[in-house]
């Protein structure tokens, strides 16, 4: 390869990662990103065992937040039922894992199932919704209704008849920890033979696994939104009929991005159930559906960066509030209402834009 070709390739990669469709960009941002990465990588050395497993749990929420940010912020599809895919992924991983962990000695198939089952469900629902050209509001509410039906269904599976292989669905006790059955969803386990590698949810290893995955997914989505497909997504969001008249099949595009959003939620689901070795129907509850909407709306849905940071900050905040009393959800709900009123595009995004403006203004002065 010639130097020129290599340079062109590098420029293309930089163009995708630092492109204009993600508002958080430029040298200052990447410096901050580097600092954040170093802090996150070094953090386990200074944290207790509990803090490490707790932080892993925070990071797990990043994927579902990115999924919702992608479909709502970039493609204009709001879903009030993203938790459905987290829950389905968790149950699929748990059920397959419980049945196969001893036979296979690893969770490869459980991971594949955990990621593909919710994506297939999303494809089915999406096919019905987008090919019927349901209005955006109907899509949003329908997703909530479907999720709540899953919750109702799973809540009534406490009886002895509800076994799938060795896995007992366990009604509202869920799969694992709280049901009387000993078999619980396994931790992520890789490799074959005598010594498979287990990523136990409490371990520092698991923390690095989740952190690494989150960074990869985040950078991958940055590249996606700055690619041609990203431009088409934004076109669909801004003016669907016009995009269609330019020859794009918007139904297919909406379906595809909806499936990708579900896939990202599924990553959260698989990681969550393997982190705690349990999942209950509460995964489908109204709260677990509204929380991603709160993170994404309050942070700023048109920025992947704001979405992740907002999710982490708000999950941390709600945990702090939960320690103080039962008003965490009242506060989060109020934050959502107020932020929709004062900064409809997101508080964090507005703050970031203000900071960027300040920076741009001060720079020529510093040079001169």
């Amino acid at each position, binding site marked *: 390869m010639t130097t020129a070709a290599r340079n062109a390739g590098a420029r293309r990669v930089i163009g995708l990662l630092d492109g204009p469709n993600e508002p958080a960009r430029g040298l200052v941002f990447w410096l901050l990103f580097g600092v954040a990465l170093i802090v996150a990588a070094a953090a386990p050395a200074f944290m207790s065992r509990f803090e490490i497993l707790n932080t892993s749990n925070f990071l797990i929420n990043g994927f579902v937040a990115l999924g919702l940010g992608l479909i709502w912020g970039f493609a204009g599809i*709001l879903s*009030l039922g993203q938790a459905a895919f987290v829950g389905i992924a968790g149950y699929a991983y748990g059920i397959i894992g419980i049945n196969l962990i001893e036979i296979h000695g690893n969770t490869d198939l459980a991971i594949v199932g955990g990621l593909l089952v919710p994506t297939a469900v999303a494809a089915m629902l999406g096919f*019905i919704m987008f090919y*019927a*050209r*349901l*209005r*955006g*509001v*109907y899509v*949003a*509410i*329908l997703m*909530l*209704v*479907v999720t*709540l*039906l899953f919750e*109702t*269904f799973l809540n*009534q599976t406490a009886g002895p008849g509800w076994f799938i292989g060795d896995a007992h669905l366990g009604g509202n006790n869920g799969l694992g920890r709280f049901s009387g059955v000993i078999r619980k969803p396994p931790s992520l386990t890789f490799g074959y033979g005598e010594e498979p590698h287990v990523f136990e949810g409490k371990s520092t290893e698991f923390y690095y696994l989740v952190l690494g995955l989150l960074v990869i997914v985040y950078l991958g989505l940055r590249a996606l939104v700055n690619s041609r497909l990203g431009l088409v997504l934004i076109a669909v969001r801004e003016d669907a009929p016009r995009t269609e008249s330019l020859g794009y099949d918007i139904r297919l595009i909406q379906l595809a991005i909806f499936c990708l959003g579900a896939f990202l939620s599924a990553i959260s689901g698989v990681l969550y159930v393997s982190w705690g070795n349990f999942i209950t129907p509460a995964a489908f509850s*109204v*709260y677990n559906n*509204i929380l991603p*909407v*709160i993170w994404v*709306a309050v942070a700023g849905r048109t920025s992947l960066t704001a979405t992740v940071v907002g999710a982490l900050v708000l999950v941390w905040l709600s945990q702090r509030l939960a320690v103080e009393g*039962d*008003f965490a*959800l*009242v506060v*989060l*709900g*109020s934050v*959502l*209402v107020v932020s*929709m*009123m004062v900064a*409809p595009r997101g508080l964090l995004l507005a703050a970031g834009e203000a900071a960027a403006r300040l920076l741009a203004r001060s720079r020529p002065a510093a040079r001169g």
Partner: protein
Amino acid sequence: MIGFLYQYADTMAVLALTAVGLIVIFGMMGVINMAHGELMMTGAYATSFAYYAGIPTLIAILIGGIAAAVVGIVIERVVIRRFYGQLLASLVATWGLSLVMSQGALLIFGPQVPSVPTPFGSFTVGEQSYSYYRIVMFVVAAAMIGGLWSLFNYTHFGVRARATMENPEMARALGTNVRSIYTLTFGIGSLMAGIAGGMFALTATIGPFLGQYYTPQAFITVVVGGAADIFVGLVASVLSLGAVRTIFTSQFNILIGHVAMLVVALAIIRFMPSGISDWIERRRQRVRNR
């Protein structure tokens, strides 16, 4: 047969009562209010408190309606007003509001408030015993639909309200105070929701999450009915969805009844994207044009 009719009437009454406030707010005004169920919860709570303060049941239900109307008007003035014309934004904002209201009720009043005893007693046909109150609910639901219909068709306010929804600029130019019409109409929808909540307070346990159960059903009923004629739509939607749910619930269980209702609702929206009433309207016009 009597058992089935009784169940059918009961299911229809529940669907109609949950949706009757929302046909005004969502169907007519086109405003999304995800806190609709929480307005019903407000009505149920106020009814319970009024009843245990010694007020007769029927007046207690009215008080429930008025309480919900007051809360609804405050919500409209403070929050929803800012989101007219932005459906997804108002969806999210009012969903936040519903979270605040249900969690707030949990904090203040605890996980349950005492429900009001069901009045009117019961009657028996053969082996089965039926409650008169369920039939009263059906009659009240029908009366509320009829009352709303007369209000919007025969009163001065109704004409102004319909004009405002049709063309706000023109209505304003002709001297209608559009803002107060919106607030009042929203208040009427909330009043209906509150009365429905009060009616339900006599049949079931009342808790802060009562609303979560009813909001999705209310939206499904209204969407299936459509906005071309909200009254025709509501009646058609309640008749059809009620039948599906009653049949599947009695043959299988409540869960399957819900799923069947959702599937049928989806099928209806697939083939009549603007609801049944729009489909009826078009048929009628086609016949007239012939």
